[in-house]
């Protein structure tokens, strides 16, 4: 038991696991391009759904991903065990509170991992909701219906979009529940879903259409909170007086 604890709190475990993470990630970045039929739609659904289907259905090409997930889990456990050990030392008076900052960063890292796990399991992805101007389209199985009230866009002579904005209304049970403008960097949020404008253009009969994605990431706010905590602790850690013996 002592040996296992020593292994889980060891910095060498951190170093070797990080190396395994790096090698698996590097391999994965190449494998993903080789097997587009497996990996190209990873973002069109939540990760747990993809993993249960294509991920487990193609163990060979997905091997790098299993190593990546295993390494991430081990790094998280390693960070927690290291922090618990330090907290015990502080409680026994063997270490000062000043040495706690790296462990705030550990906790923040763990928070980001857990929040991302929550999004990967309980999130939702509704991709490719295509709707002509003035028409309605169901937003997946959410029970929401989206109406594209108006689409405005202007194109540069070079062919790229200079500006675009879609006025949309969301309905539930025929009653409008949210209304807003969706444009670049400005989605419409409602009931935990973000509605994003992904594509647009003219229909064959001339009127404009737009394609939307609707995503729900229940862990996103917590990812932000823990990322902010990490950044704050990191900034404090950079002050030399705090870094001594940390």
């Amino acid at each position: 038991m002592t040996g296992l604890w020593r292994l889980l709190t060891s910095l060498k475990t951190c170093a070797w696991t990080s190396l395994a993470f790096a090698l698996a990630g590097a391999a994965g970045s190449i494998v993903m391009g080789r097997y587009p039929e497996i990996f190209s739609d990873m973002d069109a659904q939540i990760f747990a759904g993809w993993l249960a289907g294509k991920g487990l259905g193609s163990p060979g090409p997905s091997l790098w991903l299993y190593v990546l997930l295993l390494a991430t889990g081990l790094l998280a456990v390693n960070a927690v065990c290291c922090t618990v050990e330090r907290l015990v030392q502080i409680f026994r008076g063997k270490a000062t509170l000043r040495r706690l900052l790296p462990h705030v960063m550990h906790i923040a890292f763990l928070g980001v991992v857990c929040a991302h796990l929550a999004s990967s399991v309980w999130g939702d992805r509704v991709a490719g909701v295509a709707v002509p101007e003035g028409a309605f389209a169901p937003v997946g199985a959410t029970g929401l219906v989206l109406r594209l009230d108006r689409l405005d866009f202007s194109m540069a002579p070079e062919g790229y979009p200079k500006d675009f904005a879609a006025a949309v209304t969301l309905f539930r049970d025929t009653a409008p529940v949210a209304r807003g403008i969706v444009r670049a960097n400005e989605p419409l949020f409602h009931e935990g879903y973000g509605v994003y404008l992904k594509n647009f253009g003219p229909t064959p009969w001339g009127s404009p259409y737009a394609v939307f994605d609707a995503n729900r990431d229940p862990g996103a706010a917590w990812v932000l909170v823990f990322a902010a905590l990490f950044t704050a602790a990191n900034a404090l850690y950079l002050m030399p007086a705090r870094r001594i013996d940390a």
Partner: protein
Amino acid sequence: MHGAHVVLFWLSLFAYGAEAGLQLGGIAPRSPFRSALFGGLLLHALFLGVRWALAGHAPMAGLFESLTVFSFCTALSAFLVCRDPGAMSAWKPLSVLVLLPQAAAALLDKRLTPLYPALDTPWFATHVGFSFLGYGLFAAGLALAWVSMSGGNEAAYRAAARAALYGFSAFSAGMVCGGIWAYYAWGSYWIWTPKEIWSVLLWVYFAALTHLKFIPPEKGWPGWTRTLEMGATAAGYFVMLATFLGVSLLLRSSHSF
């Protein structure tokens, strides 16, 4: 004005070239702020400022702007972590690392990139700016680690460890800003693309690197020595290059130039 601002780019390239030439010729400046590198940095900052005003967005889009900002941040890192007399010996390799991306940028199309709607957000500048600051500090890490390993210079060792830590911190902040931007622009703070995977890989690499110095040296492989730590710091530059250029130019990714 559109074409004239490029003169500032060429002048900064000339100054960086002069610094690298002098350093390789064995002539070091008396102080960091009385060097050709400092002059080049000022001209470069002016160039980027004017270009930002002309383009209406941070000049960090496309391969030309990415390379020149990378060069700028590498030059800046000389003043952030290599100012001590002991660490200034790293200016010789570092001046070459400043010059190379700027010289590569000189070969590329320098026309202003248009303001794509997705770039019209402060998260773009903060994400890319912090990331490149991290890249610049990783370049300083390579130069300092090289000096530390070749001469056992204590000041260079400490500065190299600082460069890795500061670079990791800047890169972390860049990742946070990028996640926020991606969440608002594309609907998720995380997308499975080679660029994102390599970014996390780079982050994990330097996170582990900042822990290496706390592992006590021991006999046998790999020894966990300072040489190993400095070697890993130097290798980190190439992991960064693979993330920045390798993925963008060799693999298909949404971050491609």
